[in-house]
């Protein structure tokens, strides 16, 4: 497969991939078409009908209020710190647990993973009360702390999996050369886990950026709401301007797509582990 991939004739590969990609894009194309229709057209003929005419008006409408751009900014203000702090803390824990014989390391790892397995519904109300006691309720700081803490177990677990894959000789050699624990972490392990860090980083970015549950649990001020609840807020109780909502969604997807495209080169074709041989 990996190997056959390289032997597949280009036309076969591209033909197959193009068809699959096209299927993948159908729903997204429907979003785009919806975003280019007018409300009256949608309301009169329904979503599934052929569009009467196409216009960029919905995009103008979506951007007109302060809401959309403000909510994207809010999402970024929460997401960027969460992704950075999460990756730093999780990679530290994963490194220590994967590369050192710390007592109870398996228990600690499993406990951290188990913490992540707790359904968020079990946490919502008590966490709300905790943030209130810390004075972090309805603040971005509260969102950052909670989302970081709640996700740590998962990221630690995934990075642990990747770090175990690093050949022992690599870190051992550095140790013999006198590197400290921190030095090995910083200069050997982190660069080698870059593909995993990049992959996790783009996933973490996506999830945090699009979060709904924690936002509506911990935030109240509509000026602080991130994108998903803000877009939901564009829905009417009975009738919604789906064209504007679709446009707003397309706009809100841009940051995550940019992050993915920036990060993917690290986990796609960069330096290969073991290529030092």
């Amino acid at each position, binding site marked *: 497969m990996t190997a056959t991939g390289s032997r597949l004739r280009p036309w076969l590969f591209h033909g197959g991939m193009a068809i699959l990609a096209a299927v993948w894009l159908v729903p997204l194309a429907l979003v785009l078409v919806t975003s280019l229709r007018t409300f009256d057209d949608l309301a009169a003929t329904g979503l599934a009908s052929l569009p009467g005419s196409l216009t960029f008006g919905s995009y103008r409408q979506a951007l007109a209020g302060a809401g959309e751009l403000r909510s994207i900014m809010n999402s970024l203000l929460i997401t960027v710190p969460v992704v950075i702090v999460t990756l730093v803390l999780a990679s530290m824990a994963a490194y220590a647990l994967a590369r050192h014989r710390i007592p109870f390391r398996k228990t600690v790892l499993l406990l951290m993973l188990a913490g992540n397995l707790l359904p968020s519904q079990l946490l919502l109300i008590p966490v709300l009360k905790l943030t209130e006691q810390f004075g972090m309720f309805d603040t971005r700081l509260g969102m950052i702390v909670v989302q970081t*803490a709640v996700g740590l177990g998962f990221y630690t677990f*995934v990075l642990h999996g990747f770090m175990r*894959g690093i050949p022992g000789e690599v870190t051992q050699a550095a140790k013999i050369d006198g590197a400290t624990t921190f030095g090995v972490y910083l200069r050997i392990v982190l660069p080698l886990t870059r593909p995993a860090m990049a992959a996790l980083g783009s*996933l973490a970015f996506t999830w945090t950026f699009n979060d709904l549950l924690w936002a509506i649990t911990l935030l109240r001020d509509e000026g602080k709401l991130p994108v998903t609840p803000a877009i939901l807020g564009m829905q009417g109780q009975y009738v919604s301007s789906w064209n504007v*909502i679709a446009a707003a969604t397309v706009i809100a997807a841009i940051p995550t797509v940019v992050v993915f495209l920036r990060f993917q080169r690290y986990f796609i074709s960069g330096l290969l582990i073991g290529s030092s041989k």
Partner: protein
Amino acid sequence: MTAVPKAVSRGARGAGARTASRETAVLLAFVLVPFTLEMFWTFWPALNSVYISLTRWDGISPPVFVGLDNYLRMWSDETFRTALRNTVVWLVLFGGLSVLGGLGLALLLDKPRRGVGIYRAIFFLPVVFSMVVSALVWRMIYQPDGVVNGLLGAVGLESQARIWLGEPETALYALILPALWRQIGYIMVLFLAGLKTVDPLLHEAAKTDGATAFERFRHITLPQLRPVSTVVLAVTVIDALRSFDIVWALTKGGPYHSSELLSTYQFSTGVLGSQLGYGSALAVVIFALTAGTIVVYLVRSLRTEEAA
């Protein structure tokens, strides 16, 4: 596993003692800071909810302690049994297909060649799109005069046209497609990152030895994917047992509970409804199922790897 600081494994002695104890402190901090932070914000609040699962509580008036009543209620709750059955079906189908699909795409798109970057981005796109609109378009696809029935008509299969999300026989299975559409790109990314640890030299060596493509996949790629496979398996079980948003957005578990999952049932009783005690009990059961499935597997896999 070979990089063992002496400080941890045997305790420090002699001239290196100070360095060693500092090393120990660094390591402890590496583990304890994230560990404590997470435990404080997960297990500690969850304890309160576990207590709530032993009460009857509407979220407003004082909770009434009822012991294990909520857990006993599940036995006689037909909806719970449906949801449990559906969750197992979901785990097998959604979980299995997303792993196969993600692995397949990752293998095909791993090698640098013209255009792979675009394909990877396309398959990842559904992951980044907000659920609000994804649900909308999937409803368009499935509605009575929507895309699916249109296609069936175009190839002369009008008789197969159905109201996919509105019929109890098809609703659950119809939901799996949009769920896969959103999940496969994510699994692909994890496998792509994992494939980076596969040594291409091994493949070259095997090729010179005359191994077929399948043999090389079986004996080189797969074993080296083992660490990431553990991760993917855990991720898949977690996501399958927690799948919620697409189901909620499209059918809310209906028609008449036919596409109910434990997660949606939990939400409609404990979050939307006012049975917070029962809802908490359901969440505890979801946790027990997820943790049970994963931890049993992990304990075994961690042990075998350590032995190896």
